[in-house]
């Protein structure tokens, strides 16, 4: 029979689905008859196609099944009953209920966190009334022969052009970051940072003013709009319109007070200065302020009219670009528009303002949460199907009384959704805890996210619970609905519950593979992170306190600090190396000192230091000596380089001693090499060691003081340093960090990732363990009789334990065999390729985590099987 050609099954299924039961049999028969007829003179394919078309053609009003309100009504009436049976089942199997609910709750809490994160990102800039009509002008800057650079910023020139001749724009505003100075109000001085913005700012954005006129507040030069917070800080109250604030020699007038900027805004400011001020101050002085290719510091936002499009504006921008680019040599600047809602959760742009998260990151987060939730769903599915023996009678009775398949399906789905909602309650509690931990993970995190509750997020939470319930309950529900009532009532053991054993094994292995990957990643990641912190950088970073200077000549402070007994030495530098900041010059090398033509030029990184810097940091001189002369600014003549510089220019055949006295030109000054340093790490571990030079400077007002501290009582030393600073600078608070702390900060992203993955590892292991535990309990329970009989026949306890464990241990072994190589490759081929220098991947870390997880699993399996093996066979066998 089976060899006979058949019409496509799914077409028949479709027919069965839509057709009225009364007409169905006849129709199906007719179509089949025609199908057989067509087979005689047409190909199978053709006949099947005709069959399919006919099925679709029969889709007519008189054939379509009427919705049966009775089914729905039954569902509705039965909900009370479903609820009751579900509750009784939960209470009856406390262990399994616990495993299910806790597993789902734990995994859903991660889901809730991800929902809250995504919700926050999508809520960015929602408070602007015209949020759907605000666009930012973004810039693509391309030097010939180089990859283009995409910038969030643009030029002042763009604003000038937009003002002239672009139709389709309702309003536009230009702003510029980086106003900073010391604000003098009466006798007090405050450090002050602000953003320049022009008068249309309040037309484009919704930042309400509580005082002042929004239309004119930013019109005149030297006008100032403060936020409430800044006003309170400067004046102590917010009724300050008309007051003046003095910067250097200029008086600025407060023309408005704005409400504090909402947390979820990508534009953040403490105060606004009218853009006319920038025109008046920088526009006059600075060359190129209005240049077309000066695209680094200004931001332009525009609103378009309701029902307006951006196509016309884009054409105009292209036109402007073509016209202006004629002036440029060897480069090109093009403009385009970006909707404001795409900024916080959007593509990477240089000079971006405010927080931005790559969509990919969100997808990865969501993916991980999904995997964890799925893992918990596996448990539910696994345990429900495994335990189906106990509920099959209930289903049988229901079916005999008159339940349809759909009723049973509905019942079990309803049950799993109920359990998921119960789990949601627990997971919400967990989420509240998680949220606190997440926000305190890193100061940046709490800067970006609030993770507040909103109606939208709560709806999503509920949707997540419903989805989880459906996903977890679907397979068991289908399984139960297929049960044949008669056979189940006659002999329940005939049920083929072990038919899906293969699938269940795969699920357990998958769960353990994930858990092992997570835990191994955490441990390896952590050891790598520790490795970066303790890496021998080639110089000393211990007991060095770096104090950031704020533009003041620090000689007095240096003297003051040197008098503190715990401070051994003080040096100055323009920057701190090895923490990610870099600065460099194109330098030229003059061979052997007398040549007039440079031989070669290259980019060399630089740090500008005084004579104490090298000794404090214990840099190793291979040849020559430290700076000897103490020239004033602009008269320097000495230079200390590392070995890479010798290698790059091939100075003195790379022999440090021969390289002395050679000349290198930096910024037009010819400097003599007086010392050669052993190579050290100037960049982070991501960078290879490259040519680096040290220049001399007596004073670096914007740099750092480096203090070598020898103290047993850090607290009192810090207090002394702090009091010395307070005398020196009354405006700015002290900003001092130990070098080791700075390095730790440089790798904070890594530590955050390790923490996050570690947490996921913990969850994954919890869930996998719960699932395994449930399976072991169930298997041993169902095999209790078998064990007893074996025992009566003389099997030993260890033999029985081995018999019961064997299957599970094999599964764990397979999981480990998959997970460990995957983790190794993940690190070796993907994650660590970013770093030029790193520790070898430790076997101990790789295996350690796996061992702990295995041990945990073995204890669980062992305890359960041992209990079963030790049971008294007489008791078990008696109760038949």
């Amino acid at each position, binding site marked *: 029979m089976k060899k006979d050609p058949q019409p496509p099954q799914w077409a028949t299924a479709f027919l069965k689905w839509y057709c009225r039961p009364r007409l169905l049999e*006849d129709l199906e028969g*007719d*179509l089949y*008859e025609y199908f057989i007829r067509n087979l005689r003179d047409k190909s199978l394919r053709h006949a099947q196609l005709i069959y399919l078309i006919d099925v679709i053609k029969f889709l*007519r009003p*008189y054939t379509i099944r009427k919705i049966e309100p009775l089914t729905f009504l039954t569902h509705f009436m039965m909900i009370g009953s479903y609820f009751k049976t579900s509750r009784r089942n939960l209470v009856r199997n406390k262990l399994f209920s616990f495993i299910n609910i806790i597993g789902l709750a734990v995994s859903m809490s991660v889901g809730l966190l991800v929902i809250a994160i995504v919700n926050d990102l999508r809520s960015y800039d929602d408070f602007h009334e015209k949020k759907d009509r605000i666009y930012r002008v973004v810039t693509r800057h391309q030097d010939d022969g180089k990859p283009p650079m995409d910038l969030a910023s643009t030029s002042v020139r763009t604003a000038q052009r937009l003002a002239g001749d672009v139709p389709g724009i309702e309003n536009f505003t230009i702003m510029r970051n980086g106003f900073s100075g010391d604000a003098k109000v009466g006798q007090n001085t405050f450090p002050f940072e602000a953003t320049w913005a022009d008068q249309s700012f309040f037309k484009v954005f919704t930042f309400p003013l509580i005082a002042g006129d929004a239309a004119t507040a930013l019109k005149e030069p030297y006008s100032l709009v403060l936020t409430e917070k800044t006003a309170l800080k400067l004046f102590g109250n917010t009724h300050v319109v008309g007051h003046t604030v003095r910067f250097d020699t200029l008086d600025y007038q407060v023309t408005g007070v704005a409400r504090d900027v909402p947390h979820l805004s990508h534009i953040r400011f403490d105060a606004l200065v009218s853009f006319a001020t920038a025109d008046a101050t920088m526009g006059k002085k600075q060359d190129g302020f209005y240049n077309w290719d000066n695209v680094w510091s200004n931001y332009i936002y525009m609103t378009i009219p309701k029902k307006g499009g951006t196509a016309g504006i884009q054409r105009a921008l292209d036109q402007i670009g073509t016209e202006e680019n004629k002036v440029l040599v060897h480069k090109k600047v093009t403009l385009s528009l970006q909707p404001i809602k795409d900024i916080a959760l959007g593509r990477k742009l240089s000079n971006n303002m405010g927080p931005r998260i790559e969509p990919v990151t969100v997808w990865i987060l969501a993916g991980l949460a999904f995997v964890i939730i799925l893992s918990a769903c596996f448990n539910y599915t696994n345990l429900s199907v495994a335990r189906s023996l106990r509920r099959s009678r209930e289903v049988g009775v229901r079916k005999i009384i008159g339940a349809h398949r759909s009723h049973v399906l509905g019942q079990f789905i309803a049950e799993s959704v109920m359990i998921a909602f119960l789990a949601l309650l627990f997971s919400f509690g967990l989420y509240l805890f998680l949220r606190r931990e997440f926000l305190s993970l890193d100061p940046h995190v709490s800067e970006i996210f609030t993770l507040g509750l909103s109606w939208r997020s709560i709806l999503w939470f509920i949707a997540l619970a419903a989805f989880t319930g459906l996903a977890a309950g679907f397979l068991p529900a289908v399984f139960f609905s297929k049960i044949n009532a008669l056979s189940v009532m006659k002999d329940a053991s005939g049920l083929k519950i072990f038919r899906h054993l293969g699938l269940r094994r795969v699920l357990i292995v998958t769960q353990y593979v994930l858990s092992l990957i997570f835990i191994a990643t955490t441990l390896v990641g952590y050891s790598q992170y520790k490795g970066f912190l303790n890496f021998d950088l080639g110089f000393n970073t211990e007991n060095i306190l770096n104090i950031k200077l704020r533009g003041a000549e620090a000689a007095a402070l240096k003297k003051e600090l040197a008098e503190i007994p715990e401070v051994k030495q003080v040096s100055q530098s323009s920057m701190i190396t090895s923490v990610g900041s870099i600065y460099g010059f194109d330098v030229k090398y003059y061979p052997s000192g007398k040549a007039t033509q440079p031989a070669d030029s290259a980019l060399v990184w630089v740090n500008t230091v005084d004579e104490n810097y090298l000794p404090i940091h214990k840099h190793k001189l291979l040849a020559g000596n430290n700076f000897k002369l103490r020239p004033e600014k602009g008269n320097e003549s000495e230079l200390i380089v590392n070995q890479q510089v010798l290698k790059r220019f091939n100075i003195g055949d790379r022999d440090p001693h021969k390289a002395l006295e050679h000349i290198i030109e930096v910024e037009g000054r010819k400097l003599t090499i007086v010392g050669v340093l052993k190579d050290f790490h100037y960049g982070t571990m991501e960078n290879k060691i490259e040519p680096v030079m040290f220049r001399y400077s007596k004073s670096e007002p914007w740099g750092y003081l480096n203090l070598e501290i020898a103290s047993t009582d850090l607290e009192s030393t810090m207090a002394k340093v702090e009091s010395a600073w307070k005398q020196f600078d009354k405006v700015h608070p002290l900003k001092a960090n130990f070098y080791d702390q700075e390095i730790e900060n440089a790798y904070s992203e890594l530590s955050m990732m390790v923490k996050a993955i570690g947490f996921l590892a913990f969850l994954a292991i919890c869930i996998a363990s719960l699932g395994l535990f449930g399976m072991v309990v169930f298997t041993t329970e169902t095999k209790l009789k078998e064990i007893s009989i074996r025992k009566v026949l003389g099997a030993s306890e260890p033999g029985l334990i081995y018999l019961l464990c064997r299957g599970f241990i094999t599964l764990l072994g397979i999981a480990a065999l998959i997970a460990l190589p995957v983790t190794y490759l993940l690190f070796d081929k993907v994650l660590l390729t970013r770093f030029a220098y790193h520790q070898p991947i430790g076997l101990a870390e790789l295996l350690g985590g796996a061992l702990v997880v295995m041990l945990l699993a073995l204890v669980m399996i062992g305890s359960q099987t041992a209990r079963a093996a030790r049971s008294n066979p007489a008791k078990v066998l008696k109760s038949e």
Partner: protein
Amino acid sequence: MKGTNLGEFEELVLLTIASLAAEAYSVAICDELERYTGRSVKLGVVHAVLNRLEEKGLAKSHLGDASATRGGKRKRFYEVTHAGKVALMRAKELREAIWRNIPGFNLEGSI
């Protein structure tokens, strides 16, 4: 009034049911119609008409026995009800009455 009106195709189908007697089921009706009219008759159309005739009470149906040619599915046999017979008779009489009123009708005149 809708219940008693008989469309042209409906009349044909009803007549075919009557002529097929005990063998009147959808596919057979289709074939028979094709044989009489010489044009292809779609199963879907016949089905719809049968359904309508049944709704109007002009035909009634019952399920027959299962047969292997239809993949084990039973046929639905149709027969003309009393109302159906009345409707057919009335349609026939109507036509004949009109025919009788045409004087000297022959085909040759129209060529």
